């Protein structure tokens, strides 16, 4: 399971991608992933918002995650 990071989230994590290779330790929902990341990288919880995309669609907290998913951490967008 690959998790991609962009913008300020990439700076905070220090990498553009994290791979959860251990099936048993990988978070099984969007909410669990966010909780795990915020624990590991407390600076993420200071952002205005933190959204998650699963397979390039915005995903609510209750969406479950599976091994083949491409997941992205979306900090506050600022295009335009």
């Amino acid at each position, binding site marked *: 399971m690959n998790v991609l990071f962009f913008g300020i989230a990439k700076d905070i994590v220090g990498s553009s991608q994290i791979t959860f290779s251990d099936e048993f330790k990988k978070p099984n929902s969007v909410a669990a992933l966010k909780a795990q990341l915020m624990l590991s990288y407390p600076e993420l919880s200071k952002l205005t918002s933190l959204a998650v995309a699963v397979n390039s669609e915005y995903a609510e907290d209750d969406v479950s995650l599976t091994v083949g998913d491409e997941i992205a951490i979306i900090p506050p967008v600022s*295009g335009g």
Partner: protein
Amino acid sequence: MSEKIIEIVDKIDASKVFNELSHPKSGGICVFVGTVREFTKGEEVVSLEFETYKKMALKEMDKIATEAVVKWNLNKVIIRHAVGLKEVEEPVVVVGASSAHRDACFEACRYLIDTLKKTVPIWKKERFENKSVWVSAHP
């Protein structure tokens, strides 16, 4: 069948957008061009740097364009955003709508840029003389 142009590019040529939106059934074309402003809250900006999650950004841009086409019955619509390093006065985004009457394209154009700013995964970093800041990241 209306035509949509959805692109993420390295450099924007704002001068070609009229031809791209020109249509025999249109009586009006409305275009918004977003550009790099020299000052933010009194501080001088050296440049802006844009990055994107391209696959998702194109999908979100397509959703916005499709919604606008349906809602305002557009003949043509364009959403084009630039990425990379942009200097003062450079265009960074072009949105436009082409429709039978002007009310529709004015409203659609506003909707395109306002919604893009809310949902499309593109991020901008403001580079000042001594620091750089991800825009809107913190409350």
